């Protein structure tokens, strides 16, 4: 089973967020809580359902990641772009969502 994290978009501003180990929705993927077995994944899914029902987040998904040298990397490019921001520089001085969130 691939490692998994829980991701969503925050309701109020749509920003991509990941669930961290303290149960908070964090704007940085690298803080995400990683589920490595079935029970942990089920817990993530339940947390996601509840957060959606509580109107904190929308578009909730459990996604596959791998950990390489301590860095979390989503397996799908779509999720990598969600985590790191657009791959293009589009406005002077702006270097991606992660940089803004940091």
């Amino acid at each position, binding site marked *: 089973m691939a490692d998994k994290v829980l991701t969503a*978009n925050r309701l109020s501003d*749509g920003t*991509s967020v990941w669930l961290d180990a303290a149960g908070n929705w964090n704007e940085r993927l690298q803080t995400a809580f990683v589920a490595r077995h079935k029970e942990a994944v089920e817990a993530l899914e339940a947390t996601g359902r509840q957060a959606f029902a509580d109107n904190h987040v929308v578009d909730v998904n459990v996604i596959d990641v791998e950990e390489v040298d301590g860095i979390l990397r989503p397996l799908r490019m779509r999720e990598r772009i969600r985590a790191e921001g*657009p791959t293009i520089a589009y406005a002077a001085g702006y270097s991606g*969502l992660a940089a803004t969130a940091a």
Partner: protein
Amino acid sequence: MYRYDEFDHAFVSGRVEQFRDQVARRLSGELAEDAFKPLRLMNGVYLQLHAYMLRVAVPYGTLNARQMRMLAHIARKYDRGYGHFTTRQNIQYNWPKLSELPDALADLATVEMHSLQTSGNCIRNVTADHFAGAAADEVADPRPYAEILRQWSSVHPEFSFLPRKFKIAVTGAERDRAAIQVHDIGLHLKKNERGEIGFAVYVGGGQGRTPLVAKKIRDFLPEADLLSYTTAIMRVYNLYGRRDNKFKARIKILVHEMGAEELARQVEAEFADLRHSELTLPEADIAAIATYFAPPRLAPRAEGWANLAQWKKADPDFARWVRQNVQPHKHPDYGMVTISLKPIGGIPGDASDAQMEAVADLAEEYAFDEIRVSHEQNLILPHVALADLEPVYRGLVAAGLATANSGLITDIIACPGLDYCALANARSIPVAQAISTRFGSPERQAEIGELKIKISGCINACGHHHVGHIGLLGVEKKGEELYQITLGGSGDENTSIGEIIGRGFEPEKVTDAIEVVVDTYLGLRLDPSETFIAAYRRVGPQPFKTALYGDKTAAAA
């Protein structure tokens, strides 16, 4: 241009307040996402990969300087300082906060703009020739009819919950600059032998996963019958269009399955009931709407001819820009200026707030306060005196908007792709940037001549790849991006759907592949006047397949 009346103002303001209440209830938790989502979509608000996205309507692509400045203000105040002009002549913002969107919409309403019907299964923004009212080859200005359709279709109770979205385009010239044959309804404004205005009516065109060219179901529809006939089409579609399968719900599938003849018969039967009803357009009403679109009073500016010749001689860059980006106007002392939003290596369709302000300034000073958005993701100043081209050019240079590439290989259409879009499978923008950079030299572009590259990041085809002379479709294969090349598409009066040429290319190889296609064309064209699309239609796909794949012609894509 059209000005809101009291009803329009009250209606749009009312909708803003309604949405403000809906957002407040959503944020408080009173309204669940399932209930809220269709409401936000009705107001042009999507949820994309990184944030919400707001799509603002620019009806038939026409706006004035005040409105453009408001678009700049929205970019600055509610977004990250830029916007993306789209193939539906609209503008999208990629980073607005849901909580601030009602304020943004209220600001837009102050300049008679909104985001209604830019999403959802309704009649979307009606598009038109971006040179409307200025083009030398025009029979009549299509915008009054587009405006009549806009008023008729806005929150039309019968057509607000269609099987699927519905797109209408109107062109007023034989040369189709509005891609009407890839629309659900395409209207070609023309005159009959008695000199009366009417429309050739096309139905069932579209791109997406099933690209189809529209069928002409009527040679000449009198202008007075525009709404009754369009209503008849909508009723047949609403009745028979499929609602069980999203992918088969567009009218093009109905036309394909029912047959154009049978559909036309059904439409005519419905039309027979509707004709001479209250939907018939009185001549006075058409004339009243048309007055909003009366061309500006263009004084003779004959001195421009001599000025222009001098300026061109003195500055080769200016001469190149005029040759490529200025088209003949119906008044000989004027030109239609295309402001390229395709800087070499840049992002197709993006403009910063400062650039929008610069365009607004130039429009006010030199272009009778008129701006257009083209479906090719550029901006247009439709009425500029030749005598004013030099200062306009200097202003555009200062704003980074003077790229002389209209209609050339670097004038690429690209959807937002996987960098922003929740539906995308692959990125579009970096591919466009790489191709633009590779072919960026003015000399090389001039040598290649007219060539339209269009790129979509998924099969929904927002980047119009099916009608690109060279089309690129990004797909995801085994978790990686792959780009299929199509050749021979065209979105004009000779519309054709491009053919998939063979297996796809990885991102790092796709620019090389495009270069092979281009070099093959350069090697086989009869002479420099034979455009890429003309050459392709003459020789077919085989020389390109051989060049790309060798003799093992084209493994399956």
